[in-house]
């Protein structure tokens, strides 16, 4: 039943999926936090830029972004992100870049949702007892905002894990591309699908359960 597994590197493919997920998660957390800072900050130009970025990027399909990274950046403009001699590495890096560009807009919104849960009265009270701007931000507002952002960020992470499959469109050897290869070559559709589905369940379900539990644990009771 499952003897076809010897011919294919299923674990290797899922390792690529995990790598895509982790690298994109770190990158989009950084860029998304910066975007969120711009969107909630006092500078109108930055606010406008952040808003425009989020509204444009999250309405473009991720498939379009990742294909553009390959066909537009790589093939047309010869941007290889430091992997000029190796197409596979270049595609992997371009896929990560595309995932970061796309996921950042959702990270930004998740963080903003966290900040929006903090009542203005909290900051006003903190200012009233004479705390400085930095103290208000780091002692009162942000701790509460981060706790409220755990759940939306967890959802973004799970969506990202599933979105890494889009990298199959530009030939990154991850789980979905391997599945496509396997179902075309072997007459074992149900067994193959079960293996791949099980792999994704192993990645997404624990993430959801653990982070869901963490978010309940740290939630600010109001």
């Amino acid at each position, binding site marked *: 039943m499952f003897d076809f597994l010897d011919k294919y590197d299923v674990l290797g493919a899922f390792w690529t999926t995990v790598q895509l997920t982790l690298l994109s998660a770190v990158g989009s957390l950084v860029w998304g936090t910066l975007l969120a800072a711009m969107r*909630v*900050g*006092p*500078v*109108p*130009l*930055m606010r406008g*830029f952040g808003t425009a970025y989020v*509204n*444009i990027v999250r*309405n*473009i*399909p*991720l*498939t*379009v972004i990742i*294909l*553009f990274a390959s*066909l*537009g950046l790589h*093939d*047309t*403009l010869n*941007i290889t992100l430091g992997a000029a001699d190796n197409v596979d590495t270049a595609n992997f890096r371009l896929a990560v870049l595309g995932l970061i560009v796309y996921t950042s807009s*959702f990270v930004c919104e998740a963080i903003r*949702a966290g*900040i929006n849960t903090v009542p*203005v009265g*909290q*900051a006003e009270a903190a*200012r009233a007892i004479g705390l400085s*701007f930095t103290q208000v*931000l780091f002692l009162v*507002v942000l701790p509460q905002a981060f706790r409220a952002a755990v*759940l*939306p960020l967890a*959802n973004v992470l*799970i969506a990202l894990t*599933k*979105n*890494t*499959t*889009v990298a*199959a*469109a530009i030939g990154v050897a991850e789980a*979905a591309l391997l599945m*496509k290869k396997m*179902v075309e070559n072997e007459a074992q*559709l149900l067994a193959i*699908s079960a293996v*791949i*589905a099980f792999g*994704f*369940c192993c990645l*997404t*379900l624990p993430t*959801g359960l653990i982070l*869901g539990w963490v*978010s*309940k644990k740290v939630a600010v009771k109001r």
Partner: protein
Amino acid sequence: MSSVLYDAQGPRAKRRNVLYTAGFLVVLAAVLWWVYKALDDKGQLDWALWKPFFSGEAYSTYIWPGLQNTLKAAALAMLIALPLGATLGIARLSDHVWVRVPATIVVEFFRAIPVLVLMIFGNELYSQYTDVTSDDRPLYAVVTGLVLYNASVLAEIVRAGILALPKGQSEAAMAIGLRKGQVMRLILLPQAVTAMLPAIVSQLVVIVKDTALGGAVLTFPELLASANTMSGYYGANTIASFTVVAVIFVAINFSLTSFASWLEGRLRRRKKSTGAVLGVEDSVNIAGHAGTGAAA
């Protein structure tokens, strides 16, 4: 202007803002200049590459047929997924364990798996076990994948919509002697449907975006695939074609999102309803996985 993060600004903060704005402008201009240079060096800004998009031919030959397929797949997926999702969502609220548990397993399973995997599965399923022609197969596969995933998400939206209604609604219905089925059919569902509308419209955005997967991986001739064919025909104008396609996607999805937000605001302001509304944000949170409590 005072927010939770900063107070109304005095003269020093205003001066600092001007500095920040100037600094940001410099960075932005540098990035734009770099993009312009990169495009110009490769001759990607030549008028010949952009010209097709200012005449009707590109639209009538490539973009419109592609867009039709995108919208067709999205509409079909939504129409099939809605009743399925409603059934699953209500089944998850059932009092009977043997109804509730299987429904829960189905919903959780299909939300844990990427849409692309479901599409690849559907594609192979139709090619091995049915006699769907190879021309129709990509559409079938795309719609199948979209339906399986989105029915599960919609099931969660339906469940959250029903749970968001005030408890008094079902209590009052029971008090006047309605049966369980009647409470659901006559009292809860009609109210939940209006509460869910904004979240359902937001889900449409997700469906429209996911149809592009079929174009990239399963040779489904939708909008994105038409951009590829088009750039081949007009002399490798990849950048221009993708820009036009991205603009069309943004236009469709942005109007859907705006409509959902407008609907949400309108429903929240309505005097008649119970005030339970599932908004755009809720649909994003439900579509994720962590924590599936009803949105308050």
